[in-house]
Every structure is written in C-alpha cells, then in structure tokens.
C-alpha cells in the first residue's frame, strides 16, 4: 500500500546539511542519481557554520616539509592510536585535494604573500597546516558547498526532522519525519541513506553545540541495527567562554592559541609548562582541557572559574584581522576587549569522536544501504580529535559516502515502505499531545544536562558513571510521560520530546562505554584508572542493539600495515 503521507522519492537521501551532508549530496548528484537532502534548520545554518579555526590539510604552503605522512602521524598520535588507520591515511592523503576543490568552487581562504592558501599552527599539528578564513572558516566552507549544491540541483527539504529510518527486511527503504513549520508528517523513499547529523553536545550543560546537536543520526542508526563505535570519547574543548552565565560554553577558537595566545592562572603562572612543556598552549585538546580543569579545581582559577587566555601582546589590528569574531564576541557579550586584556576561558563540550561505525573507504555502516559521514560517523579521530581535522573529515568522507551511497543505489531496487512501521512512527510522535498530566520536556532536558555534566564529564569514576546510568533510567521513564502543549505548528516543546529520546539513548551509550574502559586515554580520563592500559589500547568499544537491549562488546583495533607503522615510528 502507499502511505497516506506526503511522499518524496530519491535514490539517495541525505540527512543533515552541514559540511558532510552537503559534500555527500554534491558527490551523489555528480554520480547521476536523484538526491534529497533533509535538514532540521534552514539551509546554511548547520553546526559547520560555527567551525572557526580552519581546515587541516598538508598542502605545504607555509611549511614546505609538510606532507600527508606527517598529517597521518599527527592524527594517529592525537587519537592515541585508537583511530581507524585507513581512515586517518585517506583523510591525510585526500584533504589537500578537497581544499583545492573548495577554492575552485569559490571559497576564498586567507592568502600567503605569494598568493597561495595561508596555513596556521594548531594544537597537535607538527606544521602550520590549517587553511583558514580569519576565524570563520566553517562559514566559508558551508556557504561554498551550499551554493555549489543548490546550483547543481539538489532537492533540499529544510526544517524537516527525520524520526525513523524505514526498513524493508534488513535493508534501507526510506525515512519518516515531520515538517517543523507545519507539523505535518512526511515520508521519503530511498535506496541509500547517508547520515550526516553531527554529534550530541546538547546532552551536556556547558557546550559549544547548537540545539540541533541531539544525536539524532546516531540514535536512528542504532535503532536500525547499526553499530556505534568509541562512544566514550567526547571532546571537551579547552576554551569556551565562562562569563557571563548566558554565554557559558560558547566557543573560543583554538586559533587564539594558534596565533600566539598564552594561558595563565590566577597567580599569573603559564601553567601549561607543567602539563606539556614542549607543546605548551598548542598541546592536544584533551591535555589542555584537563590542565585548565585541574588549575580551577586546585584553586588557581580565574575570577569566574576558568583560566586567562591572552592575545593582547599581538598588535590590535592583527588580532582584529585574524580573530574578528572573537573580538566582537567578547566585546559585545562580555564587555572584554581582547586586544587589550585577557579572555576568561574554560572547558566546554564540543565534539563526539565516537559515532556510527563505518567502513573507511565508503562510509558504509553495518546495515545495508545505510552510510554515515562527518561527526556522526566514528573512526578517524580515535580517542581525541585534533583541531582542524573536523572540517577536512567532512569533505573527505562526505565525498566518499556520497559516492558509495550513489553506487549502492544504482545496484539495488527501491524497497517497500511498511505500513506498520509508519503507523508506529506516527503514533510515537502524536503520543505527547495525548497526555494531559505529564511534564514538559525542558525540565527533563535540564536534568539530563546536569547529569552528563556532573557525572560523565572530563574526569570520570566508576561511582559517577554508575550513578549516571541510574539517573538516565529515571529520565527515560519520565520521558515516557512527557507532554506537548499547543498545536503541531512550529512547536519547539513538541520537537524536544523526540530529540530527548535520541539524546537519552546516546547518552547511555556514552556512559556504558565510559564505564567499560578502565583506563585513561585521550579524551577519556578515569580518576580511578589514571594510566593508559596497553590491552585497552588495542580495543575499541562497540555498542549495538541486541534483542531490544543495548549491548556492548570489545573489538580489536585493526592492525596497522608495516609501511604505515614505519611512518608512526619516525621521530620528529
């Protein structure tokens, strides 16, 4: 039977219109298939727009000795060798070409004196490697891809949320969702689906992430039977704003440190000397975040509980030119002039290293016809992501997933949509309106954020994580009785009832994985297991749904081939 909903048919349906989704869409279209792109917000507003510092690619424009091998090695070292080595290799090899392509599509990066793309230093990168546009590189990337995609003829479904992946047997057949504006339901038929929905930062209280970051794609994939990988690795960016309260967590780009910014505690000590004397402020994010956290915890924090980050030793015009949005952000929101005085900064939940487990070459998940790319996918970054490696991840693996999804679509027929699945999806969405005595979702969301912030944060313990699991159970049962008020017309409270389900589910995956990994590695720090453990260094955590329950297992990290081992062993 044909469903009674508005239905659209495409060969490839892409969920999420940030850098990865747009790049996948452009590539799939280039392969000659029909492409639909669904996004929760207006086009061009996705989280990619907030990326500031740059896109990492070993172009060698500034430091001539850079090449992909060194980028590969930096990425693997940053990720504490839990990375999928093949992804790290492909990423390092293909990033320069993807950057040149952006330029050919109209992106305008900052220039070197001899007219090439300028590159800046960043944490964990051996050479000056980040191509950038001041501190608004993400905007340049998304606008370039957006214009390219629209001109090429992608069908875009804006302000549309997918709540269910539809299967025909064990393969993808389509997706079900609602229009945010009118609240009407809509279905999509597709042979391949690419998930490019980003991360889960909104489950934490102090976060640099936007409202969209509710783990939708990871949850959809999990429910459809896909495996999730490395879920314990959540990146806390060392520098978010800490004052005033309304802006707590707002990102302060690593480019401040890349351009020479210095961190000090309340006693004026340049404390990074204690934590990483060699790399100092340009150490990896996990190290700098823990350092700031420790300084504050031990009573050496700044006035509002952070650290002082100072760039005012650079000429004011240089600061305004290279860090324009930081200049305005602090001036307008915190009454601080960063050209004359320090910023106050502290850790903020920023990025999910874990995500949907995919094949390196194709972005294919463990479910037929289901692909993933960008932050929603896992593998490239291992236990800790280097700054600048996210934007390059989006375009390298977005393109690969788009190609593979198109190839897959060409090789299969369209699956049938199952009326029972659709009915169930609809029932789930309407239930909150039928309850008259439940609580509204905002309260549950606040409690989830408190739980994840205080119990599953930068430093973790067995006790806290167990407590978190207990809290998550309680939140889940409260969610069973959640209620929505008003009509289905653009109703954020109603939307949140569904987003919360994804956040709770994936928060549980994070907590269970964190509980299992009894060691400290990269972004995962256990107070009760402060050292790294060689055995755990050879294992990834995998989360999968079995018999309706969340199951976890350990998988060996795949063996790195000898020639790459050699690159990793070189000391430089």
């Amino acid at each position, binding site marked *: 039977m044909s469903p009674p909903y508005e239905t659209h048919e495409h060969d490839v349906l892409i969920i999420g219109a940030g850098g990865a989704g747009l790049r996948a869409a452009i590539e799939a279209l280039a392969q000659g298939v029909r492409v639909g792109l669904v996004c929760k*917000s*207006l086009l*061009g*507003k996705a*989280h990619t*727009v*907030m990326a500031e510092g740059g896109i990492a690619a070993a172009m060698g424009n500034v430091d001539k000795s850079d090449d992909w091998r060194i980028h590969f090695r930096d990425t693997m070292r940053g990720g504490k060798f839990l990375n999928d080595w093949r992804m790290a290799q492909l990423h390092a090899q293909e990033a320069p070409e993807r950057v*040149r392509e952006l*330029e*050919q*599509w*109209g992106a*305008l990066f*900052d*220039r070197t004196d*001899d*007219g*090439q793309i300028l590159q800046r230093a960043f944490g964990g990168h051996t050479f000056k490697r980040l191509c950038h*546009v*001041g501190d*608004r590189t993400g*905007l*340049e990337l998304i*606008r370039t891809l957006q*214009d390219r995609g*629209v*001109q090429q003829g992608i069908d875009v479904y804006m302000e549309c949320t997918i709540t269910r992946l539809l299967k025909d047997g064990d393969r993808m057949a389509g997706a079900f969702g609602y229009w945010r*504006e009118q609240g009407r339901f809509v279905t999509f038929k597709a042979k391949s689906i690419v998930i490019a929905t980003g991360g889960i930062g909104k489950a934490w209280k102090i976060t640099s992430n*936007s*409202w*969209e970051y509710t783990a939708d794609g990871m949850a959809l994939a999990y429910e459809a039977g896909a495996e999730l990988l490395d879920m314990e690795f959540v990146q806390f960016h060392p520098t978010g704003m800490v*004052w*005033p*309260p*309304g*802006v707590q967590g*707002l*990102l302060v780009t690593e480019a401040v440190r890349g351009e020479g910014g210095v961190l000090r505690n309340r006693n004026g000590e340049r404390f990074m000397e204690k934590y990483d004397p060699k790399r100092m402020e340009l150490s990896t994010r996990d190290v700098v975040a823990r350092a700031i956290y420790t300084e504050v915890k031990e009573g050496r924090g700044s006035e509002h509980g952070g650290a002082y980050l100072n760039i005012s030793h650079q000429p004011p015009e240089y600061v305004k030119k290279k860090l324009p*949005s930081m200049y305005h*952000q602090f001036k*307008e*929101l*915190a*009454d601080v002039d960063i050209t004359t005085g320090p910023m106050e900064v502290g850790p903020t939940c920023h990025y999910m290293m874990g995500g949907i487990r995919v094949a390196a070459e194709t972005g294919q998940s463990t479910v037929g016809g289901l692909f993933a790319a960008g932050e929603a996918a896992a593998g490239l970054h291992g236990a800790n992501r280097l700054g600048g490696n996210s934007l390059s991840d989006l375009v390298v693996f977005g393109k690969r997933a788009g190609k593979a999804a198109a190839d897959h679509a060409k090789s299969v027929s369209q699956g049938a949509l199952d009326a029972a699945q659709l009915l169930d999806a609809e029932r789930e969405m309407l239930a909150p309106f039928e309850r008259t005595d439940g609580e*509204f*979702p*905002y*309260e549950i969301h*606040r409690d989830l954020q408190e739980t994840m912030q205080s119990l599953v944060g930068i430093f973790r313990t067995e006790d806290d994580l167990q407590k978190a699991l207990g809290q998550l159970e309680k939140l889940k049962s409260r969610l069973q009785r959640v209620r*929505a*008020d*008003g*009509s289905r*017309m*653009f*109703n*954020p*409270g*109603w939307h*949140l009832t569904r987003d919360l389900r994804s956040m709770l589910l994936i928060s549980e995956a994070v907590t269970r994985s964190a509980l299992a990994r009894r060691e400290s590695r990269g972004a995962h720090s256990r107070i009760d297991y402060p050292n790294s453990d060689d055995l755990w260094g050879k294992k990834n955590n995998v989360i999968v749904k079995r018999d309706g329950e969340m199951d976890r297992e350990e998988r060996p990290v795949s063996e790195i081939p000898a020639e790459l081992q050699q690159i990793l062993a070189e000391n430089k």
Partner: protein
Amino acid sequence: MEPHSESAEIGAAEEAVLRVFRGGVDGKAVDYTVPVAPGMVVLDALHSIQGHQSPDLAVRWNCKAGKCGSCSAEVNGRPRLTCKTRLDSLPLDQPITVSPLKAFPIIKDLVTDVSWNYQVNKRIPAFQPKAGGEWKMYQRDVDRVQEFRKCIECFLCQDVCHVLRDHSKHESFGGPRFFVRSAGLEMHPLDSVSRTKLLKDELGIGLCNITKCCTEVCPEEIHITDNAIIPLKERIVDEFYDPLTMLFRKIGRG
C-alpha cells in the same frame, strides 16, 4: 535599581518584561516576566519563556553566538539578532517588544517564511573560474570579497529594506543580501561570469535608493551600500548606460 553584588558591571535589573508576538496572521503580543541574569541576551529570555512558561513558543535559533543568523527578530522595533542583543542595552523599565521580521510572511510567533530568499539565491549564477587560470590570488585582491562573504544570511538587511518591507517588491527586487552575494561573485579575482544584466533586469538593483538602512542593521558590519551596491550600480551604468557603449551597441545592432 540595586545592582547584583558581584556583577555590578554586567546586568543590573532583577526582572524584565518581554512583550512577545504570539500566533499567526491574527496573532497578538503577550507579556512575559523573566528573571534577568548578568549578560543575558534577548534569546536567553525567549528560552526562559520556552522552558518555564510557554513550551510551544516558536523561535528559530542555532548557534547563539552570532554566527548562523537564525534568531533574527525585531526588538523594540529594530531588526536584531536576538542572541547578540543584551538586555542591559535596553531600557528595562518598560516591556521589551519582540516581533517577527515584518518583510516576510508570518508562520507562527517569531518564525517567518523566509523561503523567498532561497528562491532569489538560486537565480544568481554560481562562481565560474576563468579557464586555464592559475590558482593564485593575493590578499589585497581577496580582502574586499571576504567582507561580503562574512554574511551570515540573517536577512535583517532584507527586513529593513523599504523596497521589501514597505513596498513588497519581492517579485522584482533581490534585496541587499543578494546584492552582497552578487558583489562577492562579481569581484572574485578569478570569476568569469557577468551578473550585471540579472542585477539590472531581474533583481531590480535600480530600485535601491541607497538610504543605507541595510548597512546600519548588518550584524557583520558589512558596508552593504558603499562596498557592494554602489559599485554594482556603477558597473551597470558603465555597461548599459554609458553613452559611448550605447552608441556602439546601436551601431552593432543596426
């Protein structure tokens, strides 16, 4: 007003009243009282209303950092990003009015239908690099284009522009946002397409009488009128209205 003891420098009032437009075409303003925290912005206040008083209050937002341009509204009658409008910059002894953008059809509360902008954008020919050109560009040449590419598509310039706001010329006028976008393409050092005919005939740039309202509301401080619109108008004059060129064109056609 008694200042908070530890936050005398930022935010002083205890409470603020927000007079928020609610509903659709026949909607009306509703007053909400919200507690004020130091450094609070209008978007924080709207979130407070959502979280504690009216869960179905419709408002677009994403980054809350002035980077995505989603949370545009009219605060005390002026087009603003609500995420960058501090409460302590407004007189709190009277209600703060928050209304949807006037130049676009209302959907609900503070959310308007801005899809027209995306339709206009589609009509602008994409960047087309000169064939065989070398990919070298110098900072002095990209500086002016980078100014245009700072645009976050908040559509505040579209909202304030009288050609759209008061005269509803959406059919024949592209609006400041798309003049900025066109300027970014036209002035790209390696671009090879001309968009002047489109700007003249279809996007109606001639309707702009350079009152600079758009420049005044731009949160990215792009000099829309001086750096984008006026140079484009000059190009059009050079190309279509220059007496010598017109003469040559006539002879050519003759």
